[in-house]
């Protein structure tokens, strides 16, 4: 665990991405393959689910530290990370066991779910006592699964590609899909030739960057393909030999969740990979994202659910056809191929239609109508662009419609996590209805550090009541909140739910009484419907 803590620290102790990559390269070169596999597994965001219930972790920490539960709660509010809080509170004295490598620890850790609660607590306390604070912290991070160390997937891929001596794109592809953290898997990842490529493996998704300026800066509109930016779940659909797979962008295998798409995919020729957006879709029009969400929330997909919310893949790219990787071919060629492939698969797979206009003004007009169509705006892709890796600026842009906005009153605050630990940064905003303030949105981002600190001081001095970690506040400050959409929601007291709310700015010029009303939000609801 000491060497793994060294890696964590080396990455964590620099804000420079180059130095993070250097640290990973050096560490992986010297690492035992079994340790390297686990380290990579965690660095790429994997976690072991349900190792220890949080409630048990907390009670073990209370028992091991001698501090009461309320002190743990106060400390957690200041730290913002449970693993770290426990490492700071449980003061280990002895480190008599000597250091054990990461994979040996993991072999122990994975047995936790097989123990009963009392045995688990005993094991946790024994292990905490055996680990020095630094190692105890990293160990807790593995337990709680929230293993974020400030390196993006791209950086890990870059480091690993250097260790393996292969191009980053090749390594990114090898890392896609699921793999077990074993020494064999590690050797396979680094190996020159991979014996049997996993048939279900997707390609790394290529992403569009937000277009901030005017599209005229992109030059001749004829060089660009415009299509709607659908608001669903980005996915790749794969058919290779007998294998059919639907992968979401979160690298989750979701084949079972979308049987209509999987069934259609079975009719694809072997060696085909499509990229598109999974959408709730009926007839010729998409259904609201909220419908897709309800369907995802359903455990059982019986006929009733499938009939109520049918799903289609709106395909916009083909990455592999007849077993040949097409990603380096120009988009115009891929689109032509795509049109042929998906034509026979309607309605479960449909072609993402091209939005045509003679000039940028024409496209801008289309974009204005986006919200009524239930889409987020337009995607602009260079017709000669390859299907790359990651999100480089240049070949693909998303040109979203301007967000909806409202003025809300800050009514609750809660301490943040991670970088915002110990500061009140999780805000709830309310609008007026019949002289009362009704909470409608939570937002975490959008203020500068200076504003956050100023607001934090104000919050501490103007708290009306505390409910555990939440403070209710004097209704004084008004903020302009941007959001992407609004939908009716019986689960919310206000009856509406807003999507992706974020703070645009602090309206110091407005008093609480000037904030928006629920009626004005309901009016937006009607525009959207």
């Amino acid at each position, binding site marked *: 665990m000491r060497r793994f803590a060294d890696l964590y620290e080396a990455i964590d102790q*620099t804000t420079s991405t180059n130095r993070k990559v250097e640290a990973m390269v050096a560490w992986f070169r010297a690492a035992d393959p079994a340790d390297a596999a686990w380290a990579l597994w965690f660095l790429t965001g994997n976690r072991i689910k349900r190792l220890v219930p949080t409630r048990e972790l907390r009670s073990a920490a209370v028992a091991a*530290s001698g501090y009461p539960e309320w002190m743990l709660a106060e*400390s957690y509010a200041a730290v*913002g990370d449970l693993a770290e*809080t426990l490492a700071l509170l449980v003061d280990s004295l002895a480190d008599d066991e000597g250091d054990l490598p990461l994979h040996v620890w993991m072999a122990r850790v994975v047995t936790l779910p097989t123990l009963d609660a009392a045995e688990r607590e005993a094991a946790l306390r024994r292990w905490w006592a055996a680990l020095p604070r630094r190692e105890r912290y990293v160990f807790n991070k593995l337990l709680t699964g929230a293993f974020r160390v400030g390196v993006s997937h791209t950086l890990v891929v870059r480091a690993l590609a250097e260790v393996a001596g292969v191009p980053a794109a090749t390594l990114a592809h090898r890392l896609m899909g699921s793999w077990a953290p074993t020494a064999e898997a590690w050797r396979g990842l680094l190996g020159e030739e991979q014996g049997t490529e996993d048939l279900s493996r997707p390609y790394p998704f290529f992403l569009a960057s937000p277009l901030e300026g005017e599209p005229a800066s992109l030059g001749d509109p004829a060089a660009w393909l415009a299509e709607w930016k659908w608001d669903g779940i980005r996915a790749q659909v794969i058919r290779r030999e007998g294998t059919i797979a639907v992968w979401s962008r979160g690298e989750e295998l979701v084949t079972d969740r979308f049987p209509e798409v999987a069934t259609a995919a079975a009719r694809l020729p072997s060696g085909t990979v499509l990229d598109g957006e999974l959408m709730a879709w009926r007839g010729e029009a998409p259904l609201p994202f909220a419908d897709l969400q309800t369907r995802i929330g359903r455990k059982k997909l019986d006929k009733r659910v499938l009939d109520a919310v049918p799903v289609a893949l709106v395909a916009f790219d083909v990455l592999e056809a007849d077993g040949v990787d097409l990603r380096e071919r120009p988009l115009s060629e891929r689109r032509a191929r795509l049109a042929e492939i998906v034509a026979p698969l309607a309605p479960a797979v449909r072609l993402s239609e091209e939005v045509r206009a003679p000039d940028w003004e024409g496209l801008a007009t289309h974009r204005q109508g986006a919200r009524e169509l239930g889409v987020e705006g337009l995607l602009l892709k260079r017709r000669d662009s390859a299907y790359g890796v990651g999100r480089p600026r240049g070949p693909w842009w998303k040109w979203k419609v301007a967000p909806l906005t409202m003025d809300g009153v800050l009514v609750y605050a809660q301490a943040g996590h*991670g970088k*915002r*630990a110990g500061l009140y940064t999780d805000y709830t905003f309310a609008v007026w209805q019949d002289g009362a303030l009704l909470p409608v949105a939570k937002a975490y981002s959008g203020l500068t550090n200076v504003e956050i600190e100023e607001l934090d001081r104000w919050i501490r001095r103007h708290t009306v009541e505390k409910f555990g970690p939440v403070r209710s506040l004097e209704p004084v400050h008004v903020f302009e909140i941007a959001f992407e959409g609004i939908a009716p929601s019986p689960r919310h007291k206000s009856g509406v739910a807003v999507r992706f709310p974020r703070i645009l700015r602090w309206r110091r010029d407005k008093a609480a009484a000037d904030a928006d009303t629920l009626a004005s939000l309901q009016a937006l609801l009607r525009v959207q419907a």
Partner: protein
Amino acid sequence: MGTREPLLRPTPAGLWCEPGGFYVDPWQPVERAVLTHAHADHARPGSAAYLATAPSLPILRRRLGPDARLESIAYGEVRRIGDVDVSLHPAGHVLGSAQLRIAHQGEVWVVSGDYKRAPDPTCAAFEPVPCDTFVTEATFGLPIYRWEPPERTAAEILAWWDTTRAAGRPAVLFAYALGKAQRILAELARLTDREVYLHGAIAPIVDIYREAGVAMLPTRLVADAPAGHRFAGDLVLATPGSQGSPWMKRFPGAETALASGWMRVRGTRRRHSVDRGFVLSDHADWPALLDTVAASGAERILVTHGSTEPLVRWLCERGLDARTLPTAWEGEGDVIVETPTAGAPG
């Protein structure tokens, strides 16, 4: 003593001692102020007369201006003010920092000011003063805050400097201009004799400490570096406020660090966007707060300046009469307020 008037009570101008006719570290201008130490949140300009310890006088002079009426008193010397006897006792926080003892008709109150119990070569060590009512700070009033021995932290700072030297990069260490910067220079002087570069706001306080006989590493002003000097391998001590300012452009490729008790928590370090956080505080950690409360022998504890609620609750659960005392001394959050000579203490 239930019916007795409290010796000190909070007013809009500050903590007021009625029988003595003075305020303790007032946050608004008053007739007569007694100061525990020279940090910005405790020593504010504009009052008609100040009493403070002799070693803090040169720093206070800089902070309060040439015309301020400053009177000094030796540690332990008793002075009659109004109806009370006051004396100042070492608090171990920064040069000249003191606890204030007030005795009135057989009752004794002690205001801790800011204090720490860890050894510090730059100032007189904290002395426990028995009392009936103890007003304690609680900047780090949670058990997650526990300090390593300072010499270990100093060794970590030196190891970091050695690494950046080997890599040919500047190492810029942010530290409060009053207290922390000098403590780092004094701790490092036990481990090396290399020269350190100083930010312009730190240098005058270093000079004052030197005059007071504190041994520190040799220093030089950043502004006095030869033209074109790129500070490769140098250690630069800077005020936290200079982070992100154009001044930092002088140190291309620099690695940055912040020395503060708040660095105990990873999220705080990440929020400050520094490469390294060195846990070095001039305040008491959780065990030191509890030890000090116990050593005071006080039956009533008033907690101020920081995480007051957890400490109050902890003490009450142990049968002590503990309460929160509201003051305007900054202790909550880790807001870095920067003034030309000193910042909010961390």
